[in-house]
């Protein structure tokens, strides 16, 4: 991810009116995606080379490779996620034997790539870390489940389903995990308000946090 230079104008980042009261309706800056060029540096070239060697459809499967802040992110197409994960685990020179977690992210402005699932992989054999990221449309939020590759993804995928509504096909029991079973909506999505329920105390009503005055 590269940062729009025009937005990077100091720690205060004054733009527009510079109003910090929260009433000015300041617009948040947008993230621009770009791909990194070789050489990536560190062990990242080796990982990319080995994956390319082990995985004939590499160019089809990997949308882009991003090296940022000494971390490697492989953007993988949803259709190739399962194969890529299997190759990353099984290839001797890669050997990412642990998936440390699945994290979701919701980018409502990215048309047809609103929902992202981000997998943090660890290779204890080579002492390396990489990250794979998959983007899918909100209208069809399906991803293959990686429970067969890393059994530990089970609860992580349930959490990502619970919080973002990403449906992991092939998951053994994709149910809510943190929220109650009958909870409507997926709380971590950007279109879901924080709080949303009036706080009542002895007749006084405090609006939910998302409706209160905000400082930006």
């Amino acid at each position, binding site marked *: *991810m*590269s*940062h*729009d230079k025009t*937005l*990077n104008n*100091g*720690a*205060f*980042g004054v733009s527009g009116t510079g109003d*910090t009261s929260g009433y000015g309706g300041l617009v*948040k*800056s*947008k*993230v*621009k995606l770009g791909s990194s060029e070789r050489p990536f540096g560190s062990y990242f070239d080796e990982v990319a080379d080995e994956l390319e060697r082990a995985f004939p459809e590499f160019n089809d499967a990997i949308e882009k490779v991003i090296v*940022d*802040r000494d*971390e490697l*992110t492989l953007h993988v197409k949803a259709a190739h996620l399962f194969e890529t994960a299997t190759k990353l685990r099984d290839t001797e020179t890669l050997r990412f*034997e*642990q*998936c*440390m*977690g699945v*994290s*979701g*992210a*919701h980018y409502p402005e990215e048309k047809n790539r609103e929902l992202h699932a*981000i997998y*943090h992989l*660890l290779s*204890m054999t080579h*002492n390396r*870390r990489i*990250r794979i990221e998959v983007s899918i449309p909100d209208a069809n939020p399906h991803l293959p489940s990686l429970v067969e590759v*890393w*059994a*530990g*993804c*089970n*609860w*992580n995928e349930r*959490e990502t389903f619970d919080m973002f509504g990403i449906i992991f096909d092939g998951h053994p029991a994709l149910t*809510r*995990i*943190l*929220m*109650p079973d009958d909870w409507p909506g997926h*709380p*971590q999505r950007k279109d879901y308000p*924080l709080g949303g329920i009036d706080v009542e105390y002895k007749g006084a009503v405090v609006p939910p*946090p*998302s409706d209160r005055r*905000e*400082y*930006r």
Partner: protein
Amino acid sequence: MTQDPYASARETTEGTVYSVTGGDWDSVVTEIGATKEERVVVNMGPQHPSTHGVLRLILELEGETVTETRCGIGYLHTGIEKNCEYRNWTQGVTFVTRMDYLAPLFNEAAYCLGVEKLLGITNDVTERASVIRVLMMELNRISSHMVALGTGALELGALSPMIFAFRERELVLDIFEMVSGLRMNMAYIRPGGVAQDLPEHATSKIRETIKELRINFKDNAKLLIGNTIWLKRTKDIGILDLAGCTTLGITGPVLRATGMPWDLRKTQPYCGYENYDFDVITADTSDVYGRFLIRMNELEQSLRIIEQACDKLDVLEGQPVMVADKKIAWPSQLTLGGDGIGNSLDHIRKIMGTSMESLIHHFKLVTEGFRVPAGQVYSAVESPRGELGVHLISDGGTRPYRVHFRDPSFNNLQSTAAMCEGSQIADIVGAVASIDPVMGGVDR
């Protein structure tokens, strides 16, 4: 209104009278008789005293043997990750410290390391700040292990180790109080350094405590190591081998009990851990006893690191504990008053009375916060329970776009089924205690 099968109602002149009859015990017994196997599903928790907080275990039993185990979690879900998106980056520390409430400093450290990586100031953090972080984290490891050992023993019926363990924990919490003003959830580690420097004579006080702790640790060691009853309750119980740990993403003492010397402090050092002399403790039994021994022996290693940190701090006396960039450093110049933590009166007098510009800066930085360049990072520390990872996404604003915590308890708890199925119901308590899950971290 539908008819309640257990409470039939009839109308009388005095009003509605309900006859509560209790459960359909007869039909339950008949149904069990009709099936070939005698299976009972039992809910253990979420309010059971020995399931480590609000953990709900759903057990399918065949006599005393557990045939299936499922965990029900989410009873302590507080939406910390969502809340962080509505506060600035510095305020996030106050939230995340409350997740794994037995290891608050590790939550803060992981989060702050992530923010610093996003800001690109990892190398600007002063050495003194890093050493203080290490010191506080290792003290925290002791207090956390003390709860793990004490409550673990208590749950298996041994009362005295708990009394000793909490006595030791109190000593550590006193140090936290001396340094940060708070015993728990202190939000002491901040992006860019730590909230304030150690008070005077802190290292000599810590050295005295170390001496006391070293003697005190022997009490629990004498009580438990080699104790016949303890061995019978923990040896060959809750076994999970290396392959199981790897596929389930298990880290920490559970992984090290399989003989794998994986400790992020050694393998992927942060906060300058490569400059300390300590050993990674392992066991080769893969059982509850092995995990117990690892925690016992890690106490001594933590003491070693604390001693080295104290020596370093004496040399680094006078160095700043925050990055030089005043835009990132929390600007309020905190001082420790008689009532705990507070603003420095001198600083307020200066900005209110002499410098309008300082006042504006102060106001902007406190209300708005600093901007963090867009991007995402994953940073991990070795918490007492394993890899505590934090995934941060910034969109370039003054608040996180997404904060996700990979809490070790969450992943480690997945191994409950693998450890417990096929064992006796009483051994579940020991197995879960050896994972040492903290539900505040699991549910976040």
